[in-house]
């Protein structure tokens, strides 16, 4: 909470569309936040190499919301994990806002995730021992980027005001996912990565959660890459790419 002020004065990724409410540099043209070139990844399954990714090229601009679809096992999640630095690629490059993450050390990638990436998973993956409020602020605080006003806005926009004292296990799936999204966006990430964020939710809740996410992404101006199997949901985003045979089309 004390760090809040400091963070506010560091506008490196300050979202363009927030300019009305936040001071900072205003970007005229959307620039590329994620630039993937010729990315490849091979797993070994039952002694046989499985080439999951065979030269993926993909870029996402700031503020751009991209849906990634593909058949089961096509490598959607793997691609997402590689972008997040959760796993190491076998070839190719991933540049996050110009930072080449494939050459980073483990610690470097951890720092990158902490400071610049928002991650949302199907299982929500909240920290069960912490309250909603603490979960929401957790990453931002660790990253030293907590912003009380932004935090308050997120609480309000995500409709979590009445749930702050609760613990994750007391929340419904939709509520938990809203907290997870809030936590990811609290750092005002460069890129928000979501892996089937609505996979565990019913259709209405899913729509609702995704709508919120779209709005907030737009509000922060970060890039957004969502893995989904739902063509319907994919259609609600700016761009729709498909992973097939290890390549993005």
């Amino acid at each position, binding site marked *: 909470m004390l760090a809040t002020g400091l963070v506010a004065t560091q506008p490196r990724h300050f979202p363009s569309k927030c300019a009305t409410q936040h001071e900072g540099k205003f970007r005229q043209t959307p620039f590329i936040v994620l630039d993937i070139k010729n990315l490849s990844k091979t797993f070994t399954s039952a002694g046989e190499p499985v080439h999951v990714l065979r030269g993926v090229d993909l870029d996402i601009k700031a503020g751009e919301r991209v849906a990634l679809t593909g058949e089961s096992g096509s490598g959607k999640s793997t691609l997402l994990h590689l972008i997040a630095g959760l796993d190491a690629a076998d070839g190719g490059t991933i540049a996050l806002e110009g930072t080449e993450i494939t050459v980073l050390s483990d610690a470097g990638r951890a720092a990158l995730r902490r400071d610049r990436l928002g991650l949302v998973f199907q299982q929500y993956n909240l920290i069960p021992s*912490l309250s909603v409020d603490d979960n929401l602020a957790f990453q931002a605080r660790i990253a030293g980027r907590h912003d009380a006003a932004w935090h308050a806005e997120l609480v309000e926009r995500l409709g979590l005001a009445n749930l702050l004292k609760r613990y994750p296990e007391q929340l419904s799936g939709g509520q938990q996912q809203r907290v997870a999204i809030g936590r990811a966006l609290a750092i005002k990430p460069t890129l928000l990565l979501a892996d089937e964020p609505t996979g565990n939710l019913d259709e209405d809740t899913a729509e609702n959660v995704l709508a919120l996410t779209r709005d907030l992404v737009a509000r922060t101006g970060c890039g957004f890459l969502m893995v989904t199997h739902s063509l319907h949901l994919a259609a609600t985003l700016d761009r729709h790419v498909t992973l097939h045979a290890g390549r993005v089309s």
Partner: protein
Amino acid sequence: MQLATLLIGLISATALWSGVQAINQQARNAYDRAAATFGGTRTAMLVASDAATFPQELFVKLRRAGWPVSPMLEGRVQINGRSIRLLGIEPVTLPVDVGNAPSLGRNDLAAFVGPPGQTLVARETLGDLQQVEGATPAISNGAKLPPLRMQQQLVSDVLVVDIGAAQRLLGKPDQISRLLIGKARGKPAPLASVVGDQLQLVEPNAETELERLTDSFHLNLTAFGLLSFFVGLFIVNSAVGLAFEQRLPMLRTLRACGASARLLNTVLVVELVALAFVAGLVGLVCGYFIAAALLPDVAASLRGLYGAQIPGQLTLRGEWWLAGIGISILGALIAAATSLLKAIRLPLLATAQPQAWQQAQHRWLILQGTAALAVFAVAALLLRYGDSLIAGFGVLAALMLGAALILPAFLEIILRTGQRGARSPLALWFWADSRQQLSGLSLALMALLLALAVNVGVSTMVESFSRTFLGWLNGRLAADVYVSAPDNAKAVAIRNWLRERSEVQAVLSGGRAETQVAGQPVELLGLPDHALYRERWPLLETAPKAWTQLVPGNAAFISEQLSRRLNVRVGDVVEIATPGGNWELDIAGIYADYGNPKGQLTVNVAALLRHFPQTPQTRMGLIVPRDRIPGLIAALQKQFALDDRSVADQATVKAESIRIFNRTFAVTSALNAFTLGVAGIALLTSLLTLANSRLPQLAPLWAIGITRPKLAAIELTKTLSVALFTALLALPLGLLVAWCLLAIVNVKAFGWRLPFHVFPQQLVELVAVALLASLLAALLPVLRLARMQPATLVKVFANER
């Protein structure tokens, strides 16, 4: 992994428990043997109302009146300077129902009764006496024993001869010590109508004197065994819990596929029982080795503390194996009960939690805290109103149980306080997560708490005892050289010779006799009136001018044990039986007499000799300048052909006493270490179990950007800090345990109360040991976490879980 954990838990539970059981069983067999041997306390008997022996004609009178009695004469003889119990029996009338006494084969009867007769002796005793079968060693009065013959089941340290031979050897013609009463034929005449008031009936005692005395010791061992058994069950509990957790999806699937809950549970139970059977067997083998390793020390302890004779070779009964397997299976089922119940009630689909973990934990803590308070109340009641050894152990058990129950609440308070004060998010998470882990770790922490508290308690007691004992020994061993002559004539010669030696400043002659007070055997110690005793002999309580009171011979000091047993204080009067009638003694002082299984009275040696003229005057203490001691001993040995046992300097005697003392507590220390070890294993397995189930909780933190080494370091710190808090709680608890042991249990068990000392250095060491144990226990899971492949962590986020 869980399989290994499960097996380790069951094995350690079974091993220590059955090891302790084996030792207890061995000891009880020995006591039974002693009790049953030719009419120990298991047999009803008639004894003289006011003398050690009575005329044999009373035996004939009673037989003629239809009393199925058998005479027995008991005494002590010396063989090569070693005093040993001699028992004269009458095999023809010896009741057949005298317990499981070694029966004289009918074949042997004629050889036993007729000339030259036989001296039955246990194998151990034969070895102790350095004799062979068939030998006829002489006793101190020159008479020869009938040929020695080994009798397998005979209790050790006793020689059994025909009553006629006993009367001859002990110089008590036509006298007997007691009459054993067999099964009545018809109705015998009333006792008083046959022998008047000369004899009194002693009812059989289901519990022998030895059993009563050694109860505390065995209770102590059993408590340790039980403690480790439960700690072992903690391990099993966490292992089964984990195994179940991991199989949950499979169980769901199987249920969904139509397998009935009953079938699944049967399969689970059968699997568990099979594992428990295997682990029980391994545990029994380990238990056997533990028992075999501890037995020599246990035997030494029992011999040193109570004079109880336990054979050093382990023999096991079939029941022991069965009981061991049984307890392993039962323990496994109990430990797995919660998991099995969960499996029975397993809903097909997972549902949302109705309560936050915090609320559930809060309720659990309040419940457990209330239970702890109730248990503490019981402890307080026992402390206030209890008066027995069992009550003493009850207080101990209640204290420990209460402390164990209150531990999670105690930790919760500390952790919550920590959480409130936390500034950084990681610190916040550190405290919050520790709190959440509490329920998973609490069993292991309780085990750690108990093991630590017991360690603190026992080592404080042993250390207190050690310190008191050393001080006491310094006072008691006042003379510089101790001499024991083989007989009175030689003693006179030695005394005369010593008078000529310039370096001998004083010759202090003492004496020992045996008598009875209120039907119990009591040792009488005669001390000369000498400044050395007045200055150094340690007294706990005294009347004014106590030593001066002793001189005329109508006052005595009483040992602490005996004073408690007889409920006698300074100023009271004690009456003892002597060959010349009763002797009234004013109690002028109470002294500590650590390690003596017998009650003791100390009187002036001249008075002792007046009342017990037969007392051998063979022992003497010499006061000699330090530098002249070796020369004097060498000269004495050369002049009178005395061996090392007959002449010893103070330092040697002291060293020997301390050696015996240390051995006495070797078992306790060994069990202490075992218990701490098992607690460490419990902690390890709990942490391993938690480590797996915690992956989903740690993975998000890693995903959020906390490196694995950092996570591992935090995890380690968490474990160490809860261990530290536990250890800190264990310290006061342990001191309380020590106090209980010193002020309640020791007094009841041994008859002496020791001053209570606190040894800070020892406490610091124990905390360090606890932390080290926790560190070792936490290291494996933490290292695994630090080196975990990202792929493993990533799996947490995989969509199909």
